[in-house]
């Protein structure tokens, strides 16, 4: 356990602080560096983005933060600090490997790239959802559980009531499955939401509605967001801070405003120019 009383520049307590994170993947006895010396600090309630081309290390950063890196084939160093309710900062990497997952699940909720396939095809929706609820609220009676699920379904716009819960995922539409997946992720009391390219496999219209949906969720709850995407357009719409990765290195980080219009690094400017060319300047400012 590490006590950390660092107070950020604007006086906010950091919700998540990553300090000198390095990740290597072990392949055929060799250690290949994937991430080198990544540091950033996310304040409570801020909305951060990780941008970069594919292979830049965006997902690897997320996997490191969410303790999804396999123990046997990766090596990790640095510190990943989560702020606890009592204000202390706890380093994920100081926790034994076996217990990290349970710890992280209480700290962050994760929405994945492939959220349409995020449900277990062999279990009814009720089973998977209720077991997730029971993970956080053990010993809930069946009636209470049902009440809870129906309430959540309303919040997340999952239609069909109990009937939907009895279905297998392949009997539901893709949009419905995605909403259920997001709802299940947010069963955790976590104050941080990490979204890893949640819209890549969707068509343009669903993309927009998903992004808006995530935004409404955040607006009401004051959750902290870490949004990972290669699409700067969406990031600009969603986030107030951006960090840009390239080949496992941090290129630049700052507020969206700064990076978009006063980027210092040539790579940042190149990325922004590319996005502007595709989307049109006016669209971006929207």
């Amino acid at each position, binding site marked *: 356990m590490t006590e950390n009383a660092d107070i950020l520049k604007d006086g906010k307590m950091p919700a998540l602080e990553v300090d000198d994170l390095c990740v290597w993947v072990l392949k055929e006895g060799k250690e290949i560096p994937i991430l080198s010396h990544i540091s950033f600090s996310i304040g409570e309630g801020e909305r951060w983005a990780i941008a970069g081309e594919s292979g830049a290390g965006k997902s690897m950063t997320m996997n490191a933060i969410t303790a999804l890196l*396999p123990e046997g084939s990766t090596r990790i160093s640095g510190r990943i600090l989560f702020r606890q309710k009592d204000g202390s900062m706890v380093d994920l990497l100081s926790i034994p490997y076996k217990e990290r997952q349970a710890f992280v699940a209480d700290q962050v909720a994760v929405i994945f790239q492939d959220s349409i396939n995020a449900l277990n095809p062999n279990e009814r929706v009720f089973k998977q959802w209720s077991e997730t609820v029971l993970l956080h609220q053990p010993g809930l009676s069946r009636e209470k559980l049902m009440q809870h699920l129906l309430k959540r379904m309303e919040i997340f716009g999952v239609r069909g009531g109990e009937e939907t819960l009895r279905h297998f995922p392949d009997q539901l539409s893709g949009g419905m499955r995605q909403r259920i997946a997001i709802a299940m992720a947010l069963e955790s009391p976590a104050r941080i939401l990490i979204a890893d390219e949640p819209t890549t496999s969707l068509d343009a219209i669903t993309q927009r509605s998903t992004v808006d949906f995530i935004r409404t969720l955040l607006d009401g709850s004051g959750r902290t967001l870490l949004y990972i995407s290669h699409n700067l357009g969406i990031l600009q719409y969603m986030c107030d801070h951006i960090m840009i990765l390239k080949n496992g290195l941090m290129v630049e980080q700052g507020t969206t405003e700064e990076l978009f219009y006063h980027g210092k690094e040539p790579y940042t400017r190149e990325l922004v120019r590319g996005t502007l060319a595709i989307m049109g300047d006016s669209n971006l400012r929207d």
Partner: protein
Amino acid sequence: MKKKLILWAFFAVFVLFLFLVPHQNIKLTDILNTYQGCSREHLLGTDNLGRDLFALMVTGGQRTLLVVFIATLISFIGGSLLGMIAAYEGGLLRSLIQFIADFVTVVPSLVMALIFSALFGFSAPMAGVIFGIGNIGQYINLAEGLTSGMKERDFISAETSIGLPRASILFLHIFPNIMRQLFVYMGNNASSVVLQYAGLAFIGLGTDVTNPDWGTLLYQYRVYVLTYPRLVICPIAAICLLALFFHFAFDDARIKETELTIYD
């Protein structure tokens, strides 16, 4: 790749050796010189009847190779062809071919071989044909599954729509893509044919005891495992090494390669 080359080189030398090396008459018994150890005259010694073990092993090896060759040829060519056709054509033809596959998998091929060798006498080509037909079902299922998968790929449906002849799509475009898996299965199947044939000879219905196979030798010598282990070890080693060779020679590491998951 290099390891495989060495393996195949060994095999080539082995085959040449089997068919070219001069050996004694296997029917020659010599009651005065039974259980002889290895010598210049008898490379692997003699058995309980004074027969030359080396000569017996060589002729047994020739027949085993013949059986494996016939069996794999029939099931590989027949099975791949039928499986590809079934998946590509669909409809009644597919049902018919799948029926054949089901039928031959339901009737155990070792039992069939046993019956046929008892009825018509034991011969290597016949055993090869029965094993070949008996094992065809698995090839059909495998080739069918793989071809169905291929058919959904864009480039194949594109070729179908521009009207390329069926045969050229099947052989020039589908087969090369599913070949790798089929060859791996062929290697495993060839090993199991070696074992099946040895088992058939071991039971020995209708076999000619004067012209024995590795399996027959093992049955005849099984009581000498403690007294003259050489007699038992030779056929066992031959069977196992040949089966191992087929397993590894067609093994393909690229197919087995597994992606890393969050569990590793």
